[in-house]
């Protein structure tokens, strides 16, 4: 019976861990706008499992690149890019076309 209990316990833990990732509620989505060659907000603190969506509102294409982590295609005006953060940590990112544009996502 010990074995069964342990497995049940394991399933319950897995479900609890997966819940925030698989169940996306409205407040699990965060928005970053690109306006006037600036990521706004430039720094964002989020919980693991949050999906962040960048929208380019400039008349010039931009990209969103975090070395080894994520890389958007070229975003023309009003194009969007989304990424779901499944691991905690600090994610520095920048626009590979205009590298003076930088931002940071802190995932807890």
């Amino acid at each position, binding site marked *: 019976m010990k074995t069964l209990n342990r497995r049940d316990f394991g399933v319950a833990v897995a479900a609890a861990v997966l819940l925030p990732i698989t169940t996306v509620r409205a407040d699990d989505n965060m928005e970053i706008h690109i306006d006037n060659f600036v990521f706004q907000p430039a720094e964002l603190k989020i919980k693991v499992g949050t999906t962040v969506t960048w929208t380019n509102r400039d008349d010039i*294409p931009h990209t969103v690149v975090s070395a080894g982590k994520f890389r958007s295609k070229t975003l023309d005006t009003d194009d969007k890019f989304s990424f779901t953060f499944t691991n905690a940590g600090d994610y520095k990112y920048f626009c590979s*076309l205009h590298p003076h544009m930088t931002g940071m996502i802190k995932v807890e």
Partner: protein
Amino acid sequence: MSGHDHGEDGLSRRKVLECMTWAGTGVLWTITGGVPRSLGIIDSAQAATAAAPGMTFLQISDSHVGFDKPANPNALGTLEEAVNKINAMPVKPSFMIHTGDITHLSKAAEFDNADRIISQSKLDVHYVPGEHDFLDEDVKFYRERYGRGTKGAGWYSFDAGGVHFIGLVNVVDLKAGGLGNLGAEQLAWLEDDLRGKSKSTPIVLFAHIPLWTVYPEWGWGTEDGARALDQVKGFGSVTVLNGHIHQVMQKVEGNVTFHTARSTAFPQPAPGAAPSPGPMKVEDAKLRAMLGVASINFKQNEQRLAIIDTPLQG
């Protein structure tokens, strides 16, 4: 490149660099030894006469074919106006350089349209890429069209009329928080390329992003540009031609003249004059005074390079 003098006759002559900027208002500026001097109001015919004879080549930049936003809904149309302007010049230029951002989004159709219009000038065109020309998934459209015979991401050199031209690429492998980038491989190639060149050979360096620091807050400069400029320091006449900032800017430092050309697509604000760079919407009536091309004249006998910026209108 036929018809150009590739000989060594320029080696013994003293090189004096002179720059003339024909601004939209029709004032001709001449800069000798770093001191700007106005030659007064002139018209285009006189400006053209002042530039002739000698070898003349053209600089065209930032055509952004495919751009259709409010700052200029028809960038292909204004490129065509620029080419018409070139075709109407009293002295046919020997060739043209394009300092990048041929297209806005690196689409095959944008490259095709740009070529269809630019080829109407019937001039040889030497390209360097802008960051807008490397946006396609496989980064192949620019290379397929203009990369033949170039090194690395597309750098190369050639000689024309006794002048050594060097096309550099500073729009790849950009680092977070940084500016334009040449990279170690390209700098090593440049050193090789210049080795053995007589110091009296006039040098023209051209690249998309300014090789000098215009305004780092907006990324208008090249991280390791100073290392390239160090390598040409000993030469008697160096001219650096860039685009990217969509406005005429010029400075003279010793034997080096820096100059940026207008775009044929849309203007950008002066450094710091707006919250950010980017397409600047101006009154329709003013747009063509802020777009244009540059013609650069190298006088064989007087050994001076003259730059005349010609707006599409005004």
